[in-house]
């Protein structure tokens, strides 16, 4: 049995450091197994979130060798063998302790998004092709790795002005639902800050569910916002026809 050195961030909002731990490596081991071993053998108080251990709940998000990933899905044999393994908490959220961060901001954002609102006469007869897009977005396990890696939040810290990729995906799942009747484009443009996204696609790169966040959710939303607010011909047409701003709402 071989051993690997894990450098795990230990500390809280006041400060901290990377602490080295020796881990016995078993075949097929993932980073979360190593963290559990450290808890059992060296540091029972090492704080980390996890639940399903099967990449289905999105709890064990961390930055492994600098990359935002799920610990339960990151195999040790996929990391450089000759180096130690670096495990740090998500950087975009306030640190609570060790690998645990305060992600409550995400829940407050979700509350701002008006929920699914079907018409009173909605039949709910929908073909598979009508729900394919929505189902892709609903695969999201809310690991918030996309929020962590998004530079608008990570580097520019614009949380008050920007929903982040996760909740743009959420809005897309509502806007593209065939039975939904609300129009969230104004919210998206103003409070949601969809214009702050510069589509550099890191969210798509880190998504463990392989949702095409940028191409299938954010860009189509940007185009819908263009329809309503930026397309000069449409604006002129609306003024001429006197339909006002709502005339540009997505066609149902």
């Amino acid at each position, binding site marked *: 049995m071989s051993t690997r050195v894990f450098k795990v961030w230990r500390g809280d909002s*006041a*400060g901290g450091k990377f602490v080295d731990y020796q881990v016995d490596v078993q075949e097929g081991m993932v980073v979360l197994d190593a963290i559990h071993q450290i808890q059992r053998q060296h540091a029972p108080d090492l704080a980390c979130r996890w639940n399903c251990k099967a990449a289905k709940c999105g709890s064990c998000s961390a930055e492994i*060798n600098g990359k935002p990933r799920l610990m339960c899905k990151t195999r040790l044999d996929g990391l450089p063998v000759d180096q130690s393994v670096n495990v740090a908490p998500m950087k975009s959220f306030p640190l609570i302790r060790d690998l645990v961060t305060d992600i409550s901001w995400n829940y407050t954002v979700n509350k701002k998004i008006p929920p699914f609102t079907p018409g009173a006469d909605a039949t709910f007869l929908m073909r598979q092709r009508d729900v394919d897009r929505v189902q892709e977005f609903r695969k999201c396990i809310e690991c918030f790795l996309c929020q962590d890696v998004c530079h608008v939040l990570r580097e520019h810290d614009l949380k008050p002005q920007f929903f982040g990729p996760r909740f743009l995906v959420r809005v897309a799942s509502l806007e593209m639902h065939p039975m939904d009747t609300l129009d969230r484009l104004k919210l998206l443009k103003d409070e949601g800050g969809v214009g702050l996204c510069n589509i550099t696609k890191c969210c798509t790169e880190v998504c463990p569910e392989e949702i095409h966040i940028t191409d299938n959710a954010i860009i189509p939303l940007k185009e819908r916002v263009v329809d309503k607010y930026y397309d000069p011909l449409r604006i002129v047409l609306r003024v001429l026809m006197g339909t006002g701003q709502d005339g540009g709402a997505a066609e149902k």
Partner: protein
Amino acid sequence: MAESVSILEHKGFGVTQRRDNWWIKPLLVFIGLSAFGVYSTWAAWQGDNFLFTGHGAYYLSPFYSPQVQLWFGLHLPFSFAFLILWIPLGFRATCYYYRKTYYRAFFADPAACAVGEPKHRHYHGERKFPFILQNIHRYFFYLATIVLLFLWYDAARAFFFRSAAGHLHFGVGVGSLVMLINVMALSGFSFGCNSLRHLVGGKLDCFSCSRTARARYKIWGKVSILNLRHAEWAWVSLFSVGLTDLYIRLCAMGTLPDVRLFIIK
């Protein structure tokens, strides 16, 4: 823990815990786009050697098509390529894929995922001038599609060779193939456009609710397939358009002989 440092406040250009060579990709993009920029500006500046007519051929460089100066009989103090080039340039500059890649490679915003950025005083994304103009991408698509029609005409024209007697004969030269491949690459890029994907069907919430919606769903599906490889099409077509110009230019300069595979007389 008195000696400890807080990593979480640590920001700055290139600061990351990543262990891989994250800087290679943006560097290659930087070099690739810069090289194309330098070459295309130089080629457009020349104002000659854009048309090869040797041995009955008619190969027109995509940088110089359509030949608007002939339509209006213009005499310009600069190369007429500049009357055309702003369209494909604008189309690419506002393209969602290119935006991604140059925001990364040229603005380091971010250079790579989870890598620190240089200090920005104010980040506005695409909400303020000039980047708010990215929102008119669809208009560049419309214009670029018109240009693309001319390029298809040019590619077709390149398969006909004028004999000494003045008759046109179908044939294939290396140049004809180069121009055909180029216009196919450009089409693959253009018709995978994200704006087009939205306009043909993406804006619909229900794909089954009317006959037109069902038809648009089919087109949306085709555009989506191209869109999946939009980045690859972007690079292939970028190189193909540059190399096509270079090929025609070298032929016109007499540096390179254009091989004719066959001509049906």
